[in-house]
């Protein structure tokens, strides 16, 4: 296990280096001149040149990349071009909020998805199964931002039960987390169903049934435990999807996390913020995938020896 873990962790480093390269290059490919944006349209050429020099933009590109890497490793991601706040500070404030949203959505996804999948699998080929699977397919086909807007329409505008936007209390968390968790719940339900069906067809289940165990015990004690292994993997991978969806959900509900920060920064061409946000999101994504892989190996010893 330790050797496997060490290998996987080491393999993540070149990927992260690649990510930093992509982000660095991407930011420099964006049309427009950061120095000009910082200086404003009316600035003289002299001022623009000074800013360019202070940002290191007058250096050759490879040198700029090395500086960039050094700064990233030191935890220096520059400052916002607009309000001058250090990007690291801004991310530090907003990242926990996105994590909070993602974790709540993950809870929604598992609490709905796993029971729904078990239900569909145990009632295979009945109308219950068909209905659950159809709802799940509708769930993955729905644009997440549209679902959120519909929730606002029904629960905030019409019924006035929950706030439409903002951040703070648990009431602010309900609509965004259900919105964001819905599509993942659908994916989890589909996965749970197929994993359960696979396990329920195996010999040891027949043995358990043959020795007269109650169906409930067979399903929950014997089948579910093994079926949950792929489900856990899917849940982990869904966290990445949730980060993607957070960009949209946070925009719909004005949730002050990093997803909304990214969209705002892109619309305002705030280069250091775009850079910092994408770096943080991709790094989180890589770390999550790594954790899932390791967890999978821990749960299922067969993986380690492949």
């Amino acid at each position: 296990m330790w050797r496997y873990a060490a290998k996987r962790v080491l393999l993540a480093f070149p990927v992260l280096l690649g990510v930093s390269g992509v982000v660095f290059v991407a930011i420099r490919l964006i049309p427009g001149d950061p120095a000009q944006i910082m200086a404003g349209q009316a600035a003289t050429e002299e001022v623009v040149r000074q800013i360019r020099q202070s940002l290191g933009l007058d250096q050759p590109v490879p040198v700029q990349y090395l500086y960039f890497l050094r700064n990233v490793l030191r935890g220096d991601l520059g400052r916002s071009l607009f309000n001058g706040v250090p990007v690291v500070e801004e991310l530090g404030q907003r990242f926990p909020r996105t994590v909070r949203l993602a974790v709540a959505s993950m809870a929604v996804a598992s609490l709905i998805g796993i029971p729904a999948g078990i239900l569909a699998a145990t009632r295979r080929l009945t109308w219950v199964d068909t209905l659950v699977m159809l709802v799940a397919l509708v769930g993955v086909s729905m644009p997440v931002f549209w679902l959120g807007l519909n929730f606002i329409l029904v629960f905030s505008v019409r019924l006035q039960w929950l706030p439409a936007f903002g951040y703070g209390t648990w009431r602010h968390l309900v609509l965004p987390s259900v919105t964001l968790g819905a599509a993942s719940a659908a994916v989890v339900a589909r996965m749970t169903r197929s994993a359960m069906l696979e396990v329920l067809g195996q010999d040891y289940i027949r043995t358990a049934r043959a020795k007269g165990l109650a169906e409930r015990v067979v399903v929950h004690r014997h089948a579910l435990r093994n079926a949950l292994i792929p489900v856990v993997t899917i849940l982990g991978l869904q966290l990445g999807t949730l980060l993607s969806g957070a960009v949209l959900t946070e925009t719909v509900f004005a949730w002050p996390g990093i997803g909304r920060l990214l969209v705002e920064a892109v619309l305002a061409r705030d280069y250091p913020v775009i850079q910092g946000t994408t770096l943080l999101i991709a790094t989180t994504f890589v770390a999550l995938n790594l954790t899932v892989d390791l967890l999978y190996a821990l749960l299922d010893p067969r993986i380690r020896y492949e």
Partner: protein
Amino acid sequence: MGATRRVLSAGAVVWRRLRRSRSAVLGLGILGVFATSGLLAPWLAPYDPYASDLENSLKPPSARHWLGTDELGRDLLSRIVYGARLSMVIGTIAVAIGVAVGVPLGLVSGYLGGWFDLIVQRGVDVLLAFPSTVLAILLVTILGVGLVNVMIAVGIVSVPTYTRLVRGQVLSLKEQEFVEAARALGAGSLRIVFRHILPNTLAVLIVQTTLQVASAILSAAALGFLGLGVQQPTAEWGAMLSTARQHIQLAPHTLVFPGLAIMLTVLGFNLFGDGLRDALDPRLRV
């Protein structure tokens, strides 16, 4: 001659299985409706989708305007019908870009192995390190907004999926006997890859492509909604939702219908893809 007939009958088998699959029929039906409205938009749309009529803005559905009007008094039904054309085109072309780049990369990478494979796979790893929406946003930020750039960005996002998928297929296929037989008969690498290996990956590729169009349409709509995709006043469903959001209290119908159109189209592709998977290869059933 005999070979042709066998290929045809394989197609007939798939078609028969497809017709028996409820999800495939339902999916095909939904897609038929949207494809037809996209193709025949100029004849089907009751009004000009860009003709504004400020006196009749944000009107709820009525006999004159079946789905109501938007903030400029434009007929919503007409805009949705034209939007179908746009979404179908965006989805198809974006996926075509993904296939055109991703499939050859996966084929060569899997077949050759070695340093080429190593480089391509690390590149794929890096692209997959970005959640798809984030990568799409980053790409349109570089390319600029607008229809063509959205298709390119969404297409690039799907490249790693295809490369991974095809490479995996090639790795298992190239060890099989029929490939060895072809090589023994003196077939070159190009011929083996394109004539013997590629056709055997088609079933998986077709299913993946159907599902990929669904996610491409969703991504494009998301970019439109964020204001980073197809721009106003173009009748694009995502962009329509972005303005509808401001009138959520006054005119909920402007919010409901374009979203419903996106959902149904994507659902159609997903249903059809599921049915296709069962018909082409029952072993792949999830």
